[in-house]
């Protein structure tokens, strides 16, 4: 038996075991114990008490809906906008490469930098957005205090950074659509817009599926943006937890007063299960829609 193929893949699995599998398993184990805040060792086994605590915590419920809300506000407009821009880029533009690079620009602005810049744009009293709103005679928006407004502000950061990236992915898929299909549609008398909806969109469904599933997994773990958006040092995601996300919840729980680590571990596992469930559902639903329309 040849050994080398195994040697080549071993480094990946070894590191993954150490930095991925082992800590997750270990935290799963600890989630069934108590561990006093400053104690050097874990305490007695407590069964599912830590899980029960997290599931009954109103803040966790809030964090769940916040995460879903921010996710929807970032992914839906983003996919639509990216598709529209991609359709516009999929033409005989002058300076094609330049345009493509330009839409990708925000991708090199790190999430932390994005969050700090948008945090200042959305500052409640002195931010530019509110000054503009005020100047046109509308009441200022409580970007940090109002729940929906804070979601919108945070989602705008995600959209800023990722729309261009997804545009390019969708553009690649659009370019792979055979021109014969368009020609056939044109012969049938379909206009540009109609061609787009009846020819282009159905052809790029697999790519859309890819974009949606990856953005689900990433979007549900959102952390950097809401954390840096937070104006007070408790990092609770607003005074009323209005934009605390699930990942922030884990982070905060690991610093709370009673059994911080085991509770955070329990929360971690609950969230992993939630995300996997949603990703699978997402996958199944999209597939179903795709099947139906193919029929």
């Amino acid at each position, binding site marked *: 038996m040849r050994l080398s193929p195994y040697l080549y893949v071993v480094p990946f699995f070894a590191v993954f075991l150490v930095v991925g599998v082992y800590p997750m398993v270990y935290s799963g184990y600890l989630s069934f114990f108590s561990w006093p805040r*400053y104690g*050097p060792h874990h305490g007695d086994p407590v069964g599912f008490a830590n899980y029960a605590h997290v599931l009954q915590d109103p803040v966790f419920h809030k964090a769940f809906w916040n995460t879903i809300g921010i996710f929807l506000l970032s992914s839906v407009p983003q996919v639509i906008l990216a598709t529209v821009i991609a359709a516009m880029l999929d033409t005989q533009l002058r300076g094609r490469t330049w345009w493509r690079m330009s839409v990708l620009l925000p991708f090199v602005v790190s999430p932390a930098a994005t969050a700090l810049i948008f945090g200042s744009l959305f500052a*409640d009293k002195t931010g530019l957005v509110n000054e503009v709103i005020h100047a046109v005679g509308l009441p200022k928006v409580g970007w940090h205090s109002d729940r929906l407004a804070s979601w919108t502000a945070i989602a705008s950061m995600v959209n800023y950074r990722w729309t261009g990236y997804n545009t390019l992915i969708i553009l690649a898929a659009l370019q792979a659509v055979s021109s014969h299909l368009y020609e056939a549609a044109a012969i049938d008398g379909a206009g540009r817009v109609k061609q787009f909806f009846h020819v282009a969109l159905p052809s790029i469904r697999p790519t859309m599926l890819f974009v949606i599933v990856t953005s689900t997994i990433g979007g549900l773990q959102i952390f950097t943006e809401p954390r840096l958006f937070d104006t007070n040092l408790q990092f*609770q995601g607003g005074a009323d937890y209005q934009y605390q996300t699930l990942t922030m919840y884990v982070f905060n729980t690991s610093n709370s*007063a009673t059994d911080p680590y085991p509770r955070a571990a329990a929360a971690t596992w609950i969230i992993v299960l939630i995300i996997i469930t949603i990703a699978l559902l997402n996958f199944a639903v999209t597939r179903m829609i795709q099947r139906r329309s193919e029929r």
Partner: protein
Amino acid sequence: MRKLTIRRGGAVGSAVALVAATAAACGGGESEATQSELGKDDVLTITTFSDFGYDKLIDEWNADPDRPFTVKMTKIADWDPWKKTLTQDLQAGHGLTDIVAVEGDAMPAFLADGASDQFADLSDPELEDRWVDYAYQAAQTADGKQIGYPTDAGPEAFCYRADLFEKAGLPSDREAVKPIFESWDSYFAAGEEFVAKVPGSKWYDSSGSIAQAMLNQAEFPFQTEDNTVDVENPELEEVWNTVTEYSETLSPQVVQWGEDWTANFRNDGFATMPCPGWMFSNIKSSAPKVEGWDIVDAFPGGGGNWGGSYLAVPMQSEHQEEAQEFAAWLTAADQEVAAFDAAGNYPANLEAQQVLADRNETDAYFNDAPTAEILASRAAAVEPGRPYKGDKYSDILGLFQTAIQRVDEGSSPDDSWETFVQAVGSL
């Protein structure tokens, strides 16, 4: 609670080599490390957060050819991340420096069973009287183990804008305003008069700082003496009702330490604020060009302390004896005076306080107020042991401040209170 970020270090006695070898080696934790002696070039490590004003002191120490050992300091920008690391490394049983700085409000959590045995006992009969009582005692467990030396203290005076007072027809002279700051009743009454006359300004800087000031005078705000959590008590409800009642009229309804709060220093946003010594430099740097700030030697309802930190020695240190020696040196009078000069942390060391009072410095920015004299007098007004800080003090305080912020942002006080009680319940 950005205030937590601003605490720094300060003071003690004069005798330099106060070595208290006795206590350091005893103690009970299982994470007790094997002790080893340090030579001149061996390194003793210390971590501080924010600015304790120690850079120069440590440079000088290391430049001394006769030093018993060398010191290396790690400076962390802020208390909160440092608290997390401290917690992690206490759990891990290693990783901490020989001396660690601990913020005052968090100290009670480290005094609890299970936590306190991870720190060396620093008690030393010769040092007991070096610091203001209330600061020293706040780092002592019920059975008398001393786990920290006070670096600084935050006795509170009140800062006020004399120019805005005049505009409202209130007295503005440092002596003449004292009656306003006699009691909370007189303070709020004057506030209502003020906002009626000067509609563009509010009476105080934030609801949070007034709540903090009132809490600092309560006896058992969050926990009873046996550390049972009890937030539904008349004392706390009184603070809550008062602060939320005046939120609309007297408070600018902004979060402490944020941009909007900072902006208010410059645009006449408010007229008064509780003022521990470390707040002076904040005011100056926020509003360098504003004229009219002054400091009154009075505080509604008595006195109060806001802030102050400690130096502690974890049991995992391998050089506890030297660590204690160095912590004692840093908190001696000369060094606390030096730290005050470097970073503005008002000393907890009594002799250092006296040195500053004798210098009789005045501050031109604050209309030549005798700052050191005022703070010494304010320190004397602080009642030791108040408020009682249980093991969850800083957690609950954070939740309480958040609850007030909710009301400032438009929640009904009842809803917000309910959320607060619930959140405290799941601590």
